[in-house]
């Protein structure tokens, strides 16, 4: 177990059974994560990356549910866990940081209440011990005058501060894995980098694994060890961060990289991916990206399987880009 992966997701399928049809939000996602490893899960909105995160937490709400696949956490399959069993993992082994810090903290409860309850939900400690731990945790994430701030209500904090509190709560039980669902998207750029730095530092220090869900390639570029690119419920490309960013194999990944403005290309037009993400309801068979892809042909009418043209890299495409390395 020591050397095995912390998390292994195999062929995860989470579908939403709505009145107008089945939305396959996550449709056969597989990846693995070693202890202390940081993975960026990148995709446009609606690509299923958040649902993947929630699936790992057992927080998929009806009409959605996990219909297939395995989620091996430290060797145990948690995909079929009941809510009660899942509850023991949430916040203790796996913690989550949400996108919008303005809405995730309960506005009616003081910070200390919200921190103490998180600690006491998983460990038998008394109130004052839990409070001391909460205080430690707050200090760790760089909140000044933490003692005083414990008694405050969420609305007395700025957005960045609230996200720090959310991080402190996530860290409070020293989880093995943190799932961060676009935690910096709602923040100012300067605050963004502070939060990024903070999370990076803390996960390194405590050798926690991290799944960073985002639509922003630049954020994961400096943070993640590896990257998974999601499109229409599937992971289309996977590999180490540098390799993928330097030489993307999937046309979609390349499109994403090209649409990031950069200093080196000032004055030239940004490349954009034509069209929009397809609706996940009643998706046509075949490669879901083919309508937006310049490389698509007859072969793409069939769903591509995952191939590994280079060691350690995976791509779901019939026409992987060579990028000068193949």
């Amino acid at each position: 177990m020591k050397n095995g992966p912390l998390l292994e997701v195999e062929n995860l399928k989470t579908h939403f059974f709505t009145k107008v049809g089945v939305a396959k939000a996550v449709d056969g996602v597989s990846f693995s994560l070693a202890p202390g490893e940081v993975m960026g899960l990148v995709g446009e909105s609606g690509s299923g990356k958040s649902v993947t995160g929630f699936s790992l937490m057992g927080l998929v709400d009806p009409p959605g549910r996990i219909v297939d696949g395995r989620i091996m956490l430290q060797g145990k399959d948690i995909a079929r866990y009941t809510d009660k069993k899942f509850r023991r993992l949430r916040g203790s082994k796996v913690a989550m940081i949400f996108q919008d810090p303005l809405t995730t903290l309960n506005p009616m409860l003081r910070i200390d209440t919200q921190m103490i309850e998180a600690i006491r939900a998983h460990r038998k400690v008394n109130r004052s011990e839990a409070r001391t731990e909460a205080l430690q945790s707050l200090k760790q994430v760089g909140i000044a005058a933490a003692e005083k701030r414990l008694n405050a209500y969420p609305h007395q904090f700025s957005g960045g501060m609230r996200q720090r509190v959310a991080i402190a709560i996530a860290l409070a039980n020293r989880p093995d894995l943190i799932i961060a669902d676009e935690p910096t998207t709602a923040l100012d750029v300067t605050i963004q980098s502070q939060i990024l730095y903070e999370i990076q530092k803390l996960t390194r220090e405590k050798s926690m694994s991290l799944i960073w869900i985002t639509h922003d390639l630049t954020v994961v570029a400096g943070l993640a060890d590896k990257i998974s690119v999601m499109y229409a419920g599937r992971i289309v490309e996977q590999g180490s961060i540098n390799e993928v960013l330097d030489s993307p194999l999937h046309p979609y990944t390349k499109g994403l990289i090209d649409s990031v403005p950069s200093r080196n290309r000032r004055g030239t037009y940004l490349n954009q991916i034509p069209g929009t993400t397809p609706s996940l309801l009643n998706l046509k068979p075949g490669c879901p990206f083919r309508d937006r892809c310049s490389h698509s042909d007859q072969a793409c009418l069939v769903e591509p399987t995952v191939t590994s043209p280079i060691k350690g890299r995976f791509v779901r495409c019939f026409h992987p880009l060579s990028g000068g390395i193949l």
Partner: protein
Amino acid sequence: MTIFIIRRLMQSVVVLFSMSVIVFFGVFAIGNPADILIAPDATQEERDIAIVRLGLDQPLWKQYGSFVVNALQGDMGQSFVFSEPALKLIMKRAPATLELAFTALLVTVLFGIGAGIWCGLKPDALSSRGIMVGSILGFSIPHFWQGLVLIMLFSVYLGWLPAGGRGETGELFGITTSMATMDGIRHLILPAINLSLFKTALITRLTRAGTREAMLMDYIKYARAKGLSPRRIVGVHLLKNIMIPIITVLGMEFGRVIAFAVITETIFAWPGMGKLIIDSINVLDRPVIVAYLMVVVSMFIVINLVVDILYTVLDPRVRIDEVGT
């Protein structure tokens, strides 16, 4: 906060003042004031003396002045029927009404919030649908007819509970109440249910709507992500957030309960001030009517004031901001 309370208090005084004007001109100026204040069986001579004594020959604004002065001293005239000060008469009957109102409110809180949360958490369950249909009936069936059906069912046919009266009262913590005796409680059940049905339906729907809305909020999902038990999520995270509108409505409904007690008391012969006002209207005991109106108006103003203050106390966002300024 203090500024807010003072401002709110001043508003209340203005409302009370305008209501006294309306009641005064309503009851005293429409129709012949002499008929209102002098017993109908008085002779002409007695009438003339009384008119001068009561100052009814004075101009209207002067009469209003003396009405206010007297009212402030608690003098609202003598009841024709009981030959007692009208205000005293009402105060004697008020405890019975308040007891009924508080019991009804308690029933409302227990059942309304409980059923509302249940329906909000399981909106598609058969039981929830049943409760919601029941709440529509609770809304639509007129109050007085609900009372009649309750009597028909539980008193006349099943014979379980008495159809009317207050029954035996006793002392409990120094308060005279029906709660002290079994007989008293048996008499209290049907009127309390009658008075609470409508409110229960209302609170159920309100709580359900609040619950459904709150359960979609991020902070609930976040609380689940922390691994909290459902009991804590519902009992603390959810309840604290849906409580403010519920308490506000409950406060306002308390006033309504007192108003609707008029009906319940009439049906169940409950000796409260609601029954008194109906009896007084039927025999044109107008000083009692005036006194009742002023008492109820004052009660409403106090209730509205309390609800407003409670609102600011309950919501930390409002509370802190007010302190800050």
